[in-house]
Structures are given as C-alpha cells and as structure tokens.
C-alpha cells in the first residue's frame, strides 16, 4: 500500500512536471502570469501532507509493535521449552509454549549457531517448521548484520551487546541469507542459510549433529595427543594445535 502511495506521488509529480513544461513554453508566445499563493493554500497543502505523514507513522508503529511480539508456535511446530530471557524489545508470548532460542554469533566471516542443547553449527541454521525461533545476535569481532530474506527483518550483531529478532518458517525449505554490514575483506562470502525441517527431521538432525561434533572432537583430541607424544622433550615444537 505504501508502495502504491509512493508510486502515485511519483506519477503525480512527474506527470505534472512534464505536462507543465510542455504546455507553458515561451515559443507559444504567452506572457507569463505572475501568481502569488496565499499562505492559506500552503497551510492547506501542508496540513494534508502532515495528515498523510501521521497516518503512515501510526501504521508504522503498529506494524513495528506487532513485529516485536513473538508469535506462538503452531501445532506442527516443536513444543519444547527453553529458558532464556527475552532480548531488548522482544516480547515473548505468554503461555506454556516457549519459542526455540538460538544464539547466532557473527565472526569474520562466518555465522555460528548454538542450539539450546549446546549443539552448534556453522553457516547453516536448522530449525523446526512452524515454530517461533528467537535469534539472539552477538559478535566476537566487528559489527555484523543478520538477515535472511523472507524470514523477518535485519538486525545488528554487535560485540558485547544484546540484540535479537525472531522468525517462523511456515513451510519446510531452504532460505538464503547473508551479512548486510560491511565487515572487511571477505564480507561478501559471509553468507548463511536457514533450513526448515519437520520436527522429526529436526530432532534427528540435532542428534546426528551432536554425534558428529562428538566424533570430530574425539578425533582432534586423539591427533593432539599423538602430536604431544611425538614432540621432542626439549619443547622446540611449541606451537599448540
């Protein structure tokens, strides 16, 4: 609607501009008529425009207020609870069903997602469908800005500051996103993806991810121990892994 309004104003201004510039040309031989508008005309126009501004403002405030109220998860969604506090200006719904809280951390040039059970993933955020997801944004280095088009607005991830947003994926699928704040050399490569799965798939993925992380950590631990055993006793090989 706002887009239609601006489109209308654009046509009005430019249409009038072209029409007047064509119509009142000197070569038509008309003498200019000096017109002076009375202040009343200006106030009338100003009043109309101010009314328009106030209407847009009120609509904007209403939408903003609604946008910060996290919707309750739907019937197909995850009915689990987590116990974190709300971020600034995000009002969690009252009731038993709490949204899923994800900690998203920006770092040059990756997004890291941490799930309530301590599992984590990079680049890909996997969420259950039809579930309200609250994303708590943070950063370990510079200011980043998280946005996945189609899933709510974009918000800054600032080191040592809390900020957040929420979204709800109505259907399963993949959503591409990126960072929208100039973040240095490889900022353009700092993309992200939200994968919305059914609740069963989500829980299976979570379990698999936890196992994978566990295995990877055990592998790394074994490598480190092997390295430590091979290292010379003098400690010349001091670079820690």
């Amino acid at each position, binding site marked *: 609607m*706002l887009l239609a309004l*601006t489109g209308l*104003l*654009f046509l009005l*201004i*430019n249409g009038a*501009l072209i029409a*007047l*510039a064509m119509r*009142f*040309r*000197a070569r038509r031989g008309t*003498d*200019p*008529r*000096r*017109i*002076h*508008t009375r*202040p009343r005309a*200006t106030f009338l*126009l*100003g009043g109309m*425009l*101010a009314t328009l*501004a106030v209407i*847009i*403002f009120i609509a*904007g405030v209403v*939408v*903003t207020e609604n*946008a*910060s109220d996290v919707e309750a998860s739907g019937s197909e969604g995850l009915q689990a609870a987590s116990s974190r506090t709300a971020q600034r200006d995000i009002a969690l719904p009252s009731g038993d069903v709490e949204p899923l809280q994800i900690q998203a951390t920006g770092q*040059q040039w990756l997004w890291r997602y941490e799930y309530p059970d301590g599992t984590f993933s990079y680049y890909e955020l996997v969420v259950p469908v039809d579930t309200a997801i609250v994303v708590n944004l943070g950063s370990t*280095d*510079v*200011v980043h*800005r998280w*946005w996945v*088009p189609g899933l709510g*607005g*974009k*918000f*800054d991830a*600032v*080191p040592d*500051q809390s*900020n957040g947003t929420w979204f709800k994926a109505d259907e399963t699928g993949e959503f*591409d*996103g990126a*960072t*929208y*704040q*100039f973040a*240095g*050399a*490889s*900022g*353009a490569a700092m*993309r992200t993806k939200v994968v919305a799965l059914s609740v069963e798939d989500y829980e299976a993925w979570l379990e698999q991810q936890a196992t994978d992380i566990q295995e990877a950590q055990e592998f790394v631990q074994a490598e480190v121990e092997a390295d430590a055993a091979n290292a010379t006793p003098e400690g010349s090989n001091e670079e820690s892994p």
Partner: protein
Amino acid sequence: MSTNGISTSQRPELVSDSLPQERPGWIEMATSSDHKDVGRLYVGAALSFLALGLLQFLLIRLQLAVPENTMIEPVTFNRLLSVMSASLVVLFAVPLAIGLFTYIVPLQIGARSLAFPKLAQLSAWLYILGGATLYVSFVYTPPEAGFNALPPLSDTAFLDNNGVDVWITAVGLSALAFTLQAVNLIVTISKMRAPGLAWRRLPMFSFSASVSSWVMVVAGPAMLAALTMLFIDRHFNGVFFDPQESGAPTYYQHLSWLFFTGCYLLFIIPAAGAISEILPTFSRKPLPSRGAVAASLVAIAALGMLAWMQNMFTASIPVGFLYMAMAAALLLIVPLGILFANWLGTLAFGSIEMRAPMLFALGAISTLSVGLLAELLHAVVPVNWLLADTTDATAASGYVFVGGAVLGGFAALYHWFPKITGRTMGESLGRASFALILLGAHVTFLPMFLAGLEGQPVDVYKYFDTGNLGVLNLISSLGSLVLAAGIILTLVNLYASTTSGARAGHDPWRGESLEWLALSPPPPHNFDVVPDVRSAEPMRDIRDAIRDRRASPRAAETPDRAVRRSSAEADTVDEPESGEPVA
C-alpha cells in the same frame, strides 16, 4: 587591471620603481583570498574529485557486472569502495555546493567580499589537502574500512595499517574546512547584505546557503569528535568505542551518521536553492510563495538532521528512538511536498525557455522525486528492516545523489558559468549530457531497486547468481557507463567553454538577483555601486527603470549610468507590468 570599458587616457600616469611583479595566473589564484578565486578553487577541486570518484565507480560496476567476478581482489575492491564514497560525498557533493555558495552568495547579496576572506582561503586549502591525502594514499595504503569506517572494524585490532588513518585525516580536514566556511557564509549572509536586502528579499540560493551552512555547523564538529575518538582508540589505547570497556560502536554510529546525514542534506538543500532560482528565471515568473519555499528549506534541514537515526534502525537501540527518527523522516513529506508544489506552481502559466540550466533543473526535480519517495519507504521502521543495506538503499541514495548533487549541481554550474567566466556553456553538448545522465541514472539505479528486493547486500565485492541478480547487475553496469558518459560530457563542456564559449555579457538569462548586475567575470570588488534593493527582484526593478528612462525624453543618459541611478528611482516604479519586453 581591467578598465571596465572606461578610457584611461585622461588619468594621471602612475610611475613606480617597483611595480608588483606580474605573476602567473595559477599563483594569483592559489594565493588569493578573493571569494571568487576561493570559490573557483573549491568548484575545480570538487569536479576533479567527481572525475576520480566516477572512475572508481565504473571499476566497481565492472566488477559487479557478472556474478562471482574475480577481476578485482576483495581488498582492492574495499579500497576502491572506501575511496569512492569519500570522493563522491565528502570531496565532491559538499564542496561543490560550498564552492558555488562561496562564489555566488556575496554577488547575490551585493557584498564586496566574504566576512572572513582569509578563513575562506584556509578552508579551501584544508579541503584540498584532505582530498590530496586520500589520493596520495594510493601509493602506499588506501583506506579499506567502508563508507563510514565503523569500529571495531576500523580499529587497529582488525585493520592495522595506515588506511584508516588516511581516511580519518582526509575526512577530518574536509569536515573542518566545511565547518569553517559554513561559519563564514553564515556571518556573510547575516551581516553583509546590500541596503534594503531584507531576509524576505534574499535570493533563494543565498538562503539555501545559510541553511546548508547551519547544517554543516552541526554536522561537521560531530564528525571531528568521532574521528578524534577513533584516532585515540587506534593509537593511544582509547576505549571510546570498545564494547569490552563499556564503550560502544553505537556511539560512533550516532556521530558519523549525524555528519553523513548532514552531507546528504547538502545534496538536497543547495540543489533546491539553485532550482528555486533557475525555475523563476527561465519561466519569467517568481515562485508562488517565497516564504513557503524558505520555510520548507529550514524544515528540511531541521527534520532531516533529527532523522539521523534512520540509518540505525537495525542497531540495538530502544524502540522509542526509532519512532522519533521515523516521525522526523516522515514529517519531511510536508516541506518536501510544499517545495515540489511551489516548483510546479512556478512552471504553471509561465513562459518557459528550455535552456540548459532549466533542463538540468527539471531533471533534478524529477530524479530527486524518485530518490526522496524511495527514502520515504525507508523511513518506515519495518520496511527499513527489510530494505536497509540492500542495493535498494544504494539506489535510493543514488537517485538523490544524481538528482541533487549531479543534476542540481550541474544546473547551478550551467546557470552561473556565464557569471564566473563571461562565457556560456555549450548548449547542444549540455543537452546531450543531460539526456545521458537522466537515462544513465534510471538504467543504473532501477535494476538496483529490484536487486535489493531480492536481497543483494550493499558494499560487497561479489554476489552470487541467485534469482535475477546476474541480469539486473549487468543492466546496472551498462547504465553506469551511460551515466558516466553524461557526466564527462558536462566536464568536457565546462573545460572547453572557459576559452571557446559564446560571450555571455553580464546578464545572459535576464536573472532577477543582484549577481547579474556585476560584470562577467566580476571585478575584484564585485560592484562599482551597490544599489538599494527595493524588492525580491532588484534586477527587474533596474530593467524597468532603464526602460522607463529610454521611453522618457530624458533618454540622453547612457544605460550604464541609468543602472547606477535606477536604484534610487526603483521605488518610483509603481506596479511593474506583468510582461517583460522581448529582447
């Protein structure tokens, strides 16, 4: 010394053993504190930085012409981006306006100089030094911290080279220069107007100079403060913007956005002032309501500055502040609407001569309308959450930049070039340039709107081929070539016309304000006699007086002397007739 056509043969001959040595023109200009020389320095430097910025813009568009391009290294791209945005905003748009103000305002208000001529000279050289610092850095490390060098990225922990320091120096010197010259203009306009030139009779371009200067007096020091703190953070272990020591990057965002919002307003307000002079001149009728236009300019400045947080809707700031910024930005509809209505009202029932300045002014209005309406969308918080920092935002500010700084600034250049050089700029080259700029702007920025809706981020050295991004960016890159060609045509026109343009005389457009009384180019003292001003259109009064004198039997006097006398007699001319005699 020019003798202004008066024979010198009867004057006593000056005899001196030590005549001042004739110095080359460029030394005269570089060491002069005359407002006309300072103004030309400012304008010349600004246009040079436009050409340099344009070159970098083309390189950036070339890189983005195809998805995942590897032509330019990421760091090189970031350097081009940082230097380009500083060039176009801080080193071109703002100083072009200030330079034109410096040249034209004293002439318009009937003053013989600025209030502080040496300060103007200092300001011009501080600014040129700042610009030179930025470009000399290409031989070692250019800045790479993006449009506004937001910490912590611009801190030594993440960018430990001289690039950011260069940026701080260049932008800091320029902000200081603009602030000083803004004070100069404010005092000049307040204190040095010709007798009878009340505020309500002040030409709109001079009025916009005063308003713009007040904006810069608020915005400039904010940036100097931010840059000083950033420098202390970088080199003296400061913690102003360090979140771990209870500083915050948000403070820097506030201060730097105050400055860049001021710069943004300086795309619009000076252009609005110039348009409000050019439209009446080429329509042969005044603005419908000068008071409404003047009040609108003041309101745009005040509300625009209050809306600086419009750039920070995604930051973690309390929602009440967002509403304040949104309210201020939305209320801008009122003054902008009144401004557009007055411009359209000037055209209505006029007698329009479609010369180059008029063409550029009309193009500026049209292009500004697109950009400002797009900004209206961005003013609404939830819409901004979607569109901010996508190429949609680039397109909106691109339209305002091309509409205000480029088309508006060029309109002013075409309009006052005859006053500055005594010659008119080439008309056909001007028309071609105008057509290319207008076409180029639309072809460059319309696809960017669409790419923004698909989520293409700003300021990235590459994007990925999702949706229609490939096609849209290719079109945009082709458009940028057309846009650049248009701008270069006007720069060529400017250069060529200084020596080979048609002789203009002192008043080629039949303007209504006092600068058209002075010779073209004006002598160092501007006016032999400063007339009393009796209306908002002093030149109209003078022309009427000359015509009446010619019609009367006492017509023996030369027109020159009539001009000088006319001021005393302008008030005897009662109701001026609506039509002007066709010359």
